[in-house]
């Protein structure tokens, strides 16, 4: 018998199982859809968490203030050196003029401050560098670079008025620790949920296929080999996984839209719905792959446990 014939028979028999054994099909689709919804919600939670932490991280920075008489060459040199330091994501240069504009803007309702500035007759503010790390926990090493015996020349070092890391050190450390903890806990919780839901699916489908154990035994007794017996169950499992993932993808559309309306401002501007639309192809690939793998695994476990010698 050719491979094509046996493959066609396997697919035909598997699809017959799907249509004719409607109870098993419905139970499998239901549990598969719920599992895939849990998995996708974990993906979304992870994305939202990642985005929120990123936003939080962006609010943490270190400022290097220079003396007013520092030349642009020195500031530029320090900027280039900082940009070459490991874990530095971005270094923003704020000129004396910009610093003055920001000061005036910030104190526009404070006539006393503005008057004092006017009396001075010149710009008392120095240029500064705003340093952003790739992770808040890395500010410590960046700060060390700016310290004496760090990576700067003594001239550059002497032109630095202050580095505000030490004032904010405790807060930065706390935020870094909190972010790491949240990220780690989020991943663990997501994994636990995913594993639990997969185990529940496997067991539910195994119980659903329990009704087929007599059929499997009968097939064995008349001399059917393992491929003939297991093949159609794999096809049915694959079908349950595929259809379950499609249902999940369809359900996610209105669900994410609704959740987005309720939570966008809460999550710091990330819309779950936009995330769903922007990552649509990836979400389809991930859910279909997971659905098919779970479907086949459940069928394989069930059929193998019901097969005798």
């Amino acid at each position, binding site marked *: *018998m050719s491979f094509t*014939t046996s493959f066609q*028979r396997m697919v035909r028999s598997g699809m*017959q*199982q799907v249509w*004719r*054994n409607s109870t098993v099909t419905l139970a499998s689709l239901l549990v598969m859809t719920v599992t895939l919804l849990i998995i996708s919600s974990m993906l979304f939670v992870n994305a939202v968490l990642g985005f929120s932490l990123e936003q939080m991280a962006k609010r943490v920075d270190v400022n290097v203030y220079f003396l007013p008489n520092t030349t642009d060459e020195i500031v530029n040199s320090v900027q280039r050196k900082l940009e070459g330091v490991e874990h530095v994501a971005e270094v923003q240069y704020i000129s004396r003029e910009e610093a003055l504009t920001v000061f005036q803007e910030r104190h526009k309702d404070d006539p006393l401050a503005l008057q004092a500035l006017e009396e001075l007759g010149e710009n008392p503010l120095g240029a500064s560098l705003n340093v952003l790390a790739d992770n808040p926990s890395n500010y410590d090493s960046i700060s060390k670079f700016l310290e004496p015996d760090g990576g700067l020349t003594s001239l550059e070092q002497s032109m630095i008025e202050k580095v505000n890391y030490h004032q904010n050190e405790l807060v930065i450390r706390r935020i870094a620790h909190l972010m790491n903890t949240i990220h780690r806990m989020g991943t663990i919780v997501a994994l636990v949920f995913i594993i639990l839901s997969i185990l529940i699916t496997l067991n539910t489908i195994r119980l659903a296929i329990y009704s087929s154990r*007599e*059929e499997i*035994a*009968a*097939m*064995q*007794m*008349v*001399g*059917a*080999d*393992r491929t*003939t017996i297991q093949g159609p169950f794999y096809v049915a499992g694959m079908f349950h996984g595929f259809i379950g993932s499609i249902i999940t993808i369809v359900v996610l559309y209105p669900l994410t839209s609704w959740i987005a309306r309720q939570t966008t401002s809460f999550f710091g501007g990330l819309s779950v719905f936009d995330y769903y639309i922007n990552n649509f192809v990836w979400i389809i690939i991930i859910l279909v792959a997971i659905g098919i793998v779970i479907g086949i695994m459940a069928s394989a476990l069930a059929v193998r446990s019901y097969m*005798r*010698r």
Partner: protein
Amino acid sequence: MISFERVTKQYDDDITALDDITLTIHPGEFVSITGHSGSGKTTLLKMIWAEENPTSGKVYFGKDEIHRLPRHLIPEHRRRIGSVFQDYRLLPHKNVFENVAFMLEVSGRSDEDIMHDVPYALDLVNLVGKEHRYPHQLSAGEQQRLAIARAIIHQPQVLLADEPTGNLDPATADEIIAIFKKLNELGTTVILTTHSKQIVDSLARRVITLNQGRIIHDDIKGSYRVGSTMATPAPKKKQVSQQQTIEHANHNKNSSV
């Protein structure tokens, strides 16, 4: 063709299902195995199906020692046998046609063969016109006839029938036995376990009577023996019967394939 050499089967709880059985069944024979419930009839058939392993002794199918066959050859071994069970063991999600066709698919036959042979087998068991029904839509007699069609469609060398008439009324049982007789006339070896005195007597073929896992009678042209209903066989009679069995086996050896 099929031989048991000093076969004993004991289960974990020390129940002896078969006790030192030696017998030979030759090609073309029609053998009825009788005995009350628990006498070892079904265990004997399970040995031939390779569904159970003997605790000691050997079971041969032709030259193959069944229980030494590697796992992957068991399906091929079972396809040499046509199997009919008291509970039919039909495939509930396949219709009448597909149940019979399944046996040919398993045997690796082409779709053309299936379309040609299945109607013929269904005609033989009088199920023409019911091809699209599912097993639960058939009467008990029809289900058993379907099981027979599935058992014979691939022209097996041996037909094993485990109490095939146990759930049927006398008239339907007679129909089933008539089909077995016809198959036997066409050359198929038939091994039948039954409780029915009427069937055994009407066949007037070889009858093996079991009691508590031992052969107590093996008659070439036998009838339903009173001994099969005895609670415990007389030890002396049992020994004589086993001796007769061995003689019977030797007597028939020349005609075996």
